[in-house]
């Protein structure tokens, strides 16, 4: 065996070990590459303004992907995450339009939004973990249910958000765009959560449900908790999306559900559960965002943009999985 070969093998071993310790590494690399490419094709896109624009558009997906990740930790999936987002979106918009747009009432309304998200998550958890239904089909059925409720709250899209709400979202504090603070809070939240017993239990359940049960863990309760956390994050996602779109739309989130799953996978989480990081999902969601803008910046004809974007996401998913694959 030649020295070069030996070195390349130890390299690949090292890469694999690094990916095992930091599952988000491939996503980070892909994200960095995309970032550089974006900058090459459009210098503005990597400016302060460009980045805050990217954040304000994709923070909703970032939050949704993080929430989805916690469900995926336990080997479950939530195909109703987007519908929960829509529901929270229309609930807070309707309430904000009914009551005046004061800061206090807005905060009240937002806490109602969190409550709605948590309630939806609890509902999912009870039917999927409690009644032992298959997560994919059951959460899809509950997404239809939630969409129905959202249509009841607001039958047609278009009710505007109060000015104070979206102005805050697009505004700055001490010259730093508000969305940066939101992202900061998210990262802090992700960090704190990663140190909790609840999240470790989710990962343990996803690793081997029977083993977790035999270790004396309350498996069903842990899975339900995962869905509740996902519901809460879906409501956070709705706050961001409401800030970005400045309007209510009962169907706005449905297209984001599958993207949130894709983002979690891009971020190195295993759909079978037990392995992954929420931070990776943040990178994964931003990767999806950067692919979109890159496709635009390289001058793809309008009608081809979706196709190129679809292909690029497919390739990114494949590359991410292939790099981080463990023997």
């Amino acid at each position: 065996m030649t020295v070069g070969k030996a070195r390349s093998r130890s390299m690949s071993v090292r890469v694999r070990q690094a990916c095992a310790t930091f599952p988000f590494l491939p996503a980070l690399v892909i994200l960095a590459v995309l970032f550089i490419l974006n900058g090459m094709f459009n210098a503005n896109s990597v400016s302060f303004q460009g980045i805050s624009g990217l954040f304000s558009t994709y923070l909703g997906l970032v939050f949704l992907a993080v929430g989805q990740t916690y469900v995926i930790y336990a080997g479950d999936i939530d195909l109703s995450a987007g519908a929960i987002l829509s529901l929270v979106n229309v609930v807070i918009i309707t309430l904000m339009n009914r009551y005046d747009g004061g800061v206090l009432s807005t905060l009240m309304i937002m806490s109602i939004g969190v409550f709605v998200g948590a309630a939806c998550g609890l509902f999912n958890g009870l039917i999927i973990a409690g009644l032992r239904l298959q997560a994919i089909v059951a959460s899809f059925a509950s997404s239809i249910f939630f969409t129905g409720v959202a249509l009841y709250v607001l039958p047609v899209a278009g009710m505007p958000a109060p000015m104070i709400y979206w102005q805050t979202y697009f505004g700055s504090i001490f010259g730093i765009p508000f969305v940066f603070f939101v992202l900061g809070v998210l990262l802090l939240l992700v960090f704190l959560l990663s140190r909790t017993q609840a999240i470790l239990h989710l990962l343990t359940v996803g690793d081997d449900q029977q083993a977790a049960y035999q270790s004396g863990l309350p498996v069903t309760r842990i899975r339900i908790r995962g869905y509740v956390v996902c519901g809460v994050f879906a409501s956070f996602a709705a706050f961001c999306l409401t800030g970005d779109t400045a309007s209510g739309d009962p169907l706005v989130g449905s297209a984001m559900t599958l993207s949130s799953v894709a983002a979690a996978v891009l971020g190195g989480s295993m759909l079978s559960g037990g392995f992954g990081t929420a931070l990776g999902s943040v990178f994964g969601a931003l990767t999806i965002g950067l692919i979109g803008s890159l496709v635009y910046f390289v001058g793809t004809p309008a009608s081809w943009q979706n196709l190129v974007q679809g292909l690029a996401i497919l390739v990114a998913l494949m590359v991410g999985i292939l790099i981080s694959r463990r023997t």
Partner: protein
Amino acid sequence: MPYLNHVAGFLMSKLVLDNVSKSYGPTRAFKNGDFALQSGEVHALMGTNGSGKSTLCKIIAGSVKPDTGSIFLNDCRVQINSPKDARRLGIGTFFQELSLAKNRSVAENIFISHLPLNNYVFIDKTALEMNAEYYIDMVRDVAGDDFTAKAVVGDLRADQQQLVEILKTIATEAQVLIFDEPTSALDRSQVERFFEILRKLKAQGRAIIFISHRMDEIFEISDQLTVIRDGAIVASRKREATTAQEVISLMVGEQTDLADPTSTSHDVSPISDGQFVVTAHDLTGDGFSEVSFEVRAGEILGFGGLHGQGQSAVLRALFGANAITRGQIQVAGDNYDGRTPRAAIRNGFAYVSGNRVRDGVIQGRSIFENTIPVHAFKKHMLLSTPSRLSRRAFEALNKLATKYHSLSSSIGSLSGGNQQKVVIARWLMDTPRVLLLDDPTKGIDLSAKADLFALIRELASEGLGIILYSSEDAELLNNSDRILVFNSGRAVRELSGENRTRFNLYDAAYEVAQ
């Protein structure tokens, strides 16, 4: 309290099972279990595979729900509805199939059910690692260098994972400890360390249930022996008051006329003038290195040695299921370079694994569908018409005296031994050239074993080359013409003729072992 009358004999026991039973559909896994465990004793449960030992343990551990009966802990009737309840009541369990999260660290696994917390929410990582170190210290010098608090369990060897499960069980600090086959992957020094720990726990007054398939271990550590046969407790003896011979006859019951598992007689004569069917030279791969051997037509070559010394890995590699990094194989004189089971099958290999749940049985499908896949592949068939294939399938199944209702009934309706016979019959629809037997009798009853070995001998006399790995020494000694003893992935000695004795087998097995 009326129950006290009924269990008067068990009064003051730590744990009592009164009339506990469990059925899975029509099969009784456990019946009429009256069982008492005392504080400060190591109580061994003995029985053949599938006799109900694990079911009994899992009932106490809360992961199997008994159909009838009651459980008393410290003379109080208790309900154990989940493993969580068991933990709360002070029952800690080592599960045979391990209850570990493979992607989590050793420390996290040891404390997963009672993590040290800051402010009730955040995991106290320093405390977690410190606490873990305390338990890891118990086995540190026998566990290997990579056995650290931070190591990811999935990266550890099988014996190390078993040690993690042991530590996890001990870390419950429970008064009742159940160890279901905790030593199956451990080497001698690890077993000795484990026994030291057990003795300490015993001295602290813990009540310990211990299951092992190694008779010497049972007699070394236990105070009381309870024998289970066909799901019923048949006898309970003090260790001093019994012998291995008695225990074995209690375990197997009336079937003592079948092969005596302790005998080392050689009733087979080696055939020496057959053609080489398989020659392997210098085989190296994952779990074995520089293994060379040849098998003649009509010969049964035995692979011996302690558990997991590479015997299974070599067989799987020959069959193309594990990778070979170096070495040559010749089949009937021609170089053979098969890298997949399909290539191996095409070249006349057949492989029967003792792990039929993993490698053999296609659950939920019919006996017919479980019998024909190899034939369908060999004959490049497109249609699987029962009318055309039934006769051949019948013949193959009858060779093994398989008991079944009809070809179309589900394989799940058969006993473990008959399921294994179906899996073997799969390979006999077209006679192979080389039969690889990877501990084929694991978990099947004695009469099925007898049927199987009669057939194997018959197949050998028809000119097949057979390689047999068995974890039971008696099987190996009784049935193979030559034995290749493995140690740490290497074939260290060959025993043939008069040398095939249990003594030589163990002598070779421990030769280089640390």
